[in-house]
């Protein structure tokens, strides 16, 4: 395999919890806890998980919108976490982001034209005329018309706004687009339009996507590989075929089993898992899933499973697949 476009190693983000007579840190929310993955050029990496598992936090750290607590992020061979502010701004030309709430992410006081032009101005691309031309061309690319440039965000429907959001992300010709739940806020019929658009653009502009979502169907549809997150960890990462057909991690299995299938004939086989997601400020010891896991073993409550490849291209963090876990214990002693 070629060099990954983006390499993430040991990424962590702990948010401090402050309290006390004189405010001090009394604990941490382990929003993202030791996450590693690679993204290859031209592919779509999906990240799924339930709310609060750290998907957005991960996405934001990749662009250093949040400072990671620990870990390395390498993009095109450059270590992002060590860049100066100036260098970082330059890198942000190549990595762009599409946000979940298409309305909140557009400045309500700017016209669409202005919103789209801004990335070009910021990066000093082109003169006024060229910029305008590019704005119009991208508007058309995402299926909007020229006259939309004069309008304000609130005059658009959700789907159209998300198109604007996508157009903005593409203004600077990025290599990587991080899309954080780009379709969650949209109606089903419009969601399909946007998904199709994103696929078309990927093909036309040779884009690489990191696609964050909680809808397993959508993720499967758009992703080449999928990572499943639970309480700040990636518990399983595999090609989407492999992941959906043969999920290894009990959590992935439970997740897949829980999704309602729009087919009245479909009969559910797997058991539903019980209980709630624990709080990331006080995650369970050992394997964070052990509180809800039907296959819980003693070791699960004590030791954190190692995330490793158990089949080619299929990694999982679960003691069930870790034949060598006894050795590991010895090693760590």
């Amino acid at each position, binding site marked *: 395999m070629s060099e990954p476009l983006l390499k993430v190693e040991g990424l962590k983000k702990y948010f401090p919890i402050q309290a006390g007579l004189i405010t001090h840190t009394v604990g941490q929310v382990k929003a993202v806890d030791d996450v590693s993955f690679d993204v290859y050029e031209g592919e779509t990496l999906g990240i799924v998980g339930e709310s609060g598992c750290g998907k957005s936090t991960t996405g934001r750290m990749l662009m250093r919108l949040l400072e990671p607590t620990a870990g390395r992020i390498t993009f095109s061979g450059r270590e992002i976490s060590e860049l100066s502010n100036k260098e970082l701004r330059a890198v942000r030309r190549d990595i762009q982001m599409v946000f979940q709430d298409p309305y909140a992410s557009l400045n309500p006081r700017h016209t669409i034209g202005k919103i789209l032009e801004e990335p070009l101005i910021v990066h000093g691309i082109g003169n006024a005329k060229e910029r305008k031309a590019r704005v119009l061309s991208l508007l058309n690319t995402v299926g909007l018309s020229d006259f939309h440039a004069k309008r304000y965000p609130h005059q658009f429907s959700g789907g159209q706004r998300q198109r604007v959001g996508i157009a903005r992300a593409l203004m600077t010709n990025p290599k990587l687009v991080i899309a954080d739940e780009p379709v969650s806020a949209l109606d089903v019929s419009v969601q399909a339009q946007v998904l*199709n658009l994103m696929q078309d653009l990927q093909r036309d502009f040779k884009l690489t996507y990191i696609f964050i979502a*909680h809808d397993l169907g959508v993720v499967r*549809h758009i992703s080449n590989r999928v990572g499943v997150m639970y309480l700040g960890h990636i518990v399983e990462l595999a090609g*989407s075929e492999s992941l959906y057909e043969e999920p290894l991690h009990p959590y992935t299995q439970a997740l897949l089993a829980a*999704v309602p299938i729009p087919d009245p004939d479909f009969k559910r086989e797997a058991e539903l898992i019980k209980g709630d997601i624990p709080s990331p400020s006080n995650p369970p010891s050992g394997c964070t899933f052990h509180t809800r896991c039907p296959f819980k073993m003693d070791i699960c409550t004590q030791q954190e499973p190692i995330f490793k490849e158990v089949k080619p291209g299929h990694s999982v963090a679960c003691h069930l697949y870790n034949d060598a876990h006894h050795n590991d214990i010895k090693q760590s002693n």
Partner: protein
Amino acid sequence: MKKELLNVIELETTFFTDDGPVKAVDGVSFSLYEGEILGVVGESGCGKSVTSLSIMGLIPSPPGKITGGEIMYKEQDLTTFSQKAMRKIRGKDIAMIFQEPMTSLNPLFTIGNQLTEAISIHHKDWPKKQIRARAIEMMTLVGLPRAEELFKDYPHQLSGGMRQRVMIAMALVCDPNILIADEPTTALDVTIQAQILALMKDLNRRLNTAVMMITHDLGVVAETCERVVVMYGGKIVEEGLVDEIFKSPQHPYTQGLIQSIPDMRYKKQRLYAIPGNVPKPGSVVQGCRFAARCEFAFERCTIEEPELYVVSPQHKSRCFLSEEGMRNERAVIES
């Protein structure tokens, strides 16, 4: 045939806004039968919530008002009821749960307080002890652990799933005949959603409460409902048994909707996408509301409004293509 519990006839609810009247529900008719789970599905703004609130008599007024139609329950028209009479119905005969379990519970009262309140409103004569016992029984029934302790807790101390269970318990505590569930799982995580849906199905079977399940998720419909009503722009566009609707959807909108959902079980190469946008509520359209987005639209669609044509005994569709004489034509177009 099961007994008809609720019969909504040509319901019309209008909001009188600053920009003129908006008919959020425009001539909706359907029935709810004893013990069944009826799905009401449609995209946002199509009038699902307004329909259910109309039944409850909870349309925020002003600006909203039921401007036409009847809601027949026990041979009486609920739309003619006074607020006072409606209060007797609410909670006791028809109960409702809402989309946001986070905000649907009063943050300043304990769970116990809110549950017992629901009982005491309709059972004024019950002694405190009995009310409490009933509340705890109900909490256990909806799978809330440590009911006694939870009783003293405030909503913010509970997780989303637990809160929705509390909501369900509260709704069912007076043994209503009908439970209206307005997107009860939309705000929940998938794993929790599955638990709640299972619970509702179970309760429906055990208590024989008829459920009107409002959702925009066809998956939820397929899993939980027997019959389904599909709404679009304030109108019912298709109605029928779940099996039939999914296997042979008649209305182009239903068809599009089903096709546009990515299926988790296999990879579709490309999704079908209904063109255009969900219409703004209140926009006045001549002819069929869906015509502008419809692949099959022809001239008549933009002039005349189709009615609900009967496709099969339990299956109706608001599309000219479903009209008796048009079926053949349709086959031609589709092929």
